[in-house]
Structures are given as C-alpha cells and as structure tokens.
C-alpha cells in the first residue's frame, strides 16, 4: 500500500518539478523584455514587446509594411532593410531573398523575431499608410464575375489618397482556417469621396479573398484595410493620354476620370476598355454618357470574342490591336495601363510602335 503511495507521489513530484521548471524557463528565457525599433535613423522609434515578428511588431505600432500572406513567410512582400539587430538569416528567409538583397541586409520581416533592439530602414511613404476599419455599404454585381465593393469608413472616418492608388483589404479567417491574408485592390472612387473606399473585385477561382467577398461578405459587415499604397497616378504634364485596361483594371481609371471631372482637368484622353464578350462589360452606360458630354474624353470599348447573341457592332479584336488601329502618332502622348502582366507587355509593345517612349508609359502591373 505504502509503495503505491510513494510511487504516485514520486511521479507527481518529478512531473511537477519539471513542469514548474519549464514554466519558469518560459517566463525568463522566452521573455525578451521591451525592445526598441529605430526607423530611418531615429525618424521614428518604437518600443515594442520582444519575442514577436518584426512585421507584426511594426503593424501593431501603426507602421504598415505591405504583406499579402499575413506573416506566413510565403509572399515576400514584407521586405525590410534591417541595419542591425536581426540576428542570422532564418532558413525560411533565404529562399525568398536574392544575393544582392542579402548583402544589403534586406530581410523578410515576418520571419525576423525581435529579440533585441533593431535598426531598420523603410521607405518614408509607408508612414502615411494607416489602418482603416469600416462597414460594407454596398456590394453590387457589375458582371457575372465582377463585384463593386463600397465601404463606408468608420475609424479613421476619412482617407486621403491620390487617384490611382490602391488599398490592401484584410481578409479575416473564414470557413475553416482560411484567410488572414491581405489583397491589393485599386480604389475606384475619387478622393473627394474621402469617407468611402470603393473597389472593383473580380472573382478568382480558388482565391482566398475573392471567395470571401463573393460568398461570405454581406452589407453591414465590418471590414479592415490599410492604405493608400502605390505610385500609379496622373502625371503633371498636359499631354494627351491613352488609357488601356480591362476587367477590374478599370478601377483606378474610374477614380482618375471622376477626379478629373470634379477638378476640371481637361486633359484629352481616350480610354480603351477591353473585354471578351458583352457579359464582361460594365459601367458602359455611364462611360458612354460621359464621353458624349465631355469633349476631351473618348471611350472605346472592344470585345475580343463576342458571342453571337451579343449583336456587337462596336470595336472587335484584342484591345492592343484596337489601340494600334486607333492611334496614329503618339509622339506627344502618354500611356496609362492597368491589367495583367501579359496585357501590359503587349500594350507597351504597341505604344512603343506608336512612338510613345518608356518614360511616358505608366502602369499598375497586376503583379
């Protein structure tokens, strides 16, 4: 009898001792205390709780380094130059960095653990990026696979951006462990509508974000986003413009056009909108009406493979072919492109042939 008691007590004692030891160790060994993050040679310093990833520490303090995969170490968007304090390269970082980047101390910030003070360098534009919380005001179908998402901002209530910029929509965890990623969408509302963010979203088969938007999101739901990001915008010159986009690529141009109208920017421009068939066209009536009202704006929708029942009598062919037919001399023009890398490369080719040089071609490459 006493043997059983002693045996039980012994097992409890040993297990208990080690459990206590582990808890103490966790408290002291895994505790890194508070660490300082020095950004851009003390332009800004943050005091954060050590032990978290650099990316999450920065985002928690309102410095929104871009990320698509939400810190899983796959998208490589969160590259940050760490001058000191990052420790050796983690095995998960090495495959995502080039030799030059490694030499320049560029790190994948979601894989760098903050264990001591760090000194980092980030583009100063990132400081202007904020996180917004809002509610879904409208979610309307534009085509069979494109929706327009309109978000009313709550906190902060207004966003300040340049037409052509994009935001990163936060996709929460949904439907069995999916989500918590970020996806970029260009803003389609003009900056005057500062209390709203409007985007045009196309359904991606098996897409984490678009499946959420198309199947789970409802009017009234709360959403979060960060922004504004991006360099795509109108140039300062008065040169005539050629705009080429298809599908959801229209978003930045819809913002830019309405901004131009509101601010009486009467730069001559022709918008070539490419689609496959009539069911892929949207906002046609609005753009057609504006083209009639405004003498500086021309709208050219083109279908590359219209269905028989479309009865399409407009332009036909690949959008790049249509552009080639319409443009004669582009020597004093500028090109603005938004779409897939394949379409953009083909469009750049055409613009080159029309004498538009690279320094006058601007694009938001879907990459």
């Amino acid at each position, binding site marked *: 009898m006493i043997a059983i008691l002693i045996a039980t007590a012994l097992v409890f004692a040993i297990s208990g001792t080690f459990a206590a030891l582990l808890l103490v160790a966790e408290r002291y060994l895994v505790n890194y205390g508070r660490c300082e993050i020095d950004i851009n040679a003390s332009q800004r310093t943050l005091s954060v709780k050590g032990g978290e990833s650099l990316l999450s520490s920065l985002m928690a303090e309102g410095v929104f380094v871009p990320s698509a*995969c939400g810190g*899983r170490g796959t*998208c490589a968007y969160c590259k940050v130059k760490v001058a000191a304090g990052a420790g050796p390269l983690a095995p998960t970082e090495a495959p995502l960095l080039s030799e030059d980047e490694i030499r320049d101390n560029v790190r994948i910030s979601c894989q760098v653990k903050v264990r001591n003070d760090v000194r980092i360098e980030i583009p100063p534009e990132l400081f202007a990026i904020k996180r917004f919380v809002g509610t879904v005001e409208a979610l309307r179908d534009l085509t069979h696979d494109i929706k327009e998402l309109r978000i009313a901002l709550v906190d902060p209530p207004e966003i300040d951006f340049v037409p052509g910029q994009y935001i990163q929509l936060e996709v929460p965890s949904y439907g069995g*462990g999916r989500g918590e990623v970020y996806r970029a969408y260009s803003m389609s509302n003009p900056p005057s509508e500062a209390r709203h963010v409007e985007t045009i979203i196309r359904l*991606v088969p*098996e897409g984490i974000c678009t499946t959420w938007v198309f199947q789970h999101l409802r009017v009234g739901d709360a959403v979060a986003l960060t922004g504004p990001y991006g360099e795509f915008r109108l140039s300062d010159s008065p040169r005539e413009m050629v705009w080429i986009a298809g599908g959801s690529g229209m978003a930045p141009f819809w913002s830019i056009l309405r901004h131009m109208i509101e601010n009486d920017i009467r730069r001559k421009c022709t918008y070539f909108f490419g689609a496959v068939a009539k069911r892929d066209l949207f906002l046609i009536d609005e753009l057609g009406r504006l083209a009639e009202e405004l003498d500086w704006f021309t709208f050219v929708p083109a279908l590359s493979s219209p269905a028989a029942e479309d009865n399409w009598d407009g332009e036909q062919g690949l959008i790049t072919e249509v552009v080639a037919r319409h443009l004669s001399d582009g020597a004093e023009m500028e090109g603005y492109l938004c779409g*897939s890398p*394949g379409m953009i490369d*083909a469009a750049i080719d055409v613009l080159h042939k029309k004498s538009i040089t690279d320094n006058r071609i601007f694009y938001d490459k879907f990459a």
Partner: protein
Amino acid sequence: MKEMPAEDALRRKMQPGAISGGGFLGSDARSLQEILDTDAAAIAALGLTHLQVAERLGEIVRAAMAAQGAPAEVAAGLQAVYCEARGRVPCPWSDGMFEKGQVEITDTRTGETLLCTPLSVHMIAAHGFYQGRGSHYRIEPGRLPRMLALPGE
C-alpha cells in the same frame, strides 16, 4: 514515418487558406511523397517526363495569355482560355512567385476540360507535383496524352 520540419512546413503551405483558397492537396489523405511517387510512376508508364508535360502546358498557357482572355486555338480541336487575376502566388517550395490566373483547356470534340495555372505548371516542371486528388487544379496524368495531343500510350 516522421516528417522533417521542412516537409511538415511544405505540407502546411499546401493546406486550404495558406496559399490558395482550396489548397493543393484536395481531399487526398496520402502523404506528399506517395502522391509524388504515384504520379511519377503514371507519367513514366505513359512514356513521358515531367519536363515534357510542363513544356507543353507552358506553351498552351503562354498562347492563352497572349489572347488576353479570348479563346486561343492551341492545337487541332484544342482551345485555351485565360482568366486573369491580379497578384502573384508563391510556390509552396519557396522557389518562386508566379502570376495568378487560370487557363481552361477545352477539347472541342469531347467537351472535356483541363485547368492549369502558371504555378501548377511550375510545380510539375520543378517538383513533379500534379496536386492531390480533389484539388481544383489537379492534373490526372492519364488525361494528358488525350488532352494535350502529347505522344503517349
């Protein structure tokens, strides 16, 4: 058999929600190595190599992309349509980022379709990975000779 941390991480990246909404393993309960071995044996039995398959698929994907969404005739009775999507998607093996977007290949005679993406083509070329059964972009090796007009039994 215990898996290395690297293989574990690989498998985790293939789950739904990690990189793609549906993941790369579908409803397949087999281990990754078994999936790779079985498909490799099937491809070898057809007298093909992974690189051959990937090259042909790559050709079709490029032709479809050039058509910017309109149907592209890539071979007699074979049509490919490209559906674009913004962004890049990483390979679970962390050896590159690939354009999103899918290509739907249709055999106009039978109506059979095959789906592929730049990423799925890369995974075939570099890792011999045709994805697990039930995955949206799985390519069953047995369908290849018919669908792609490849030499095979």
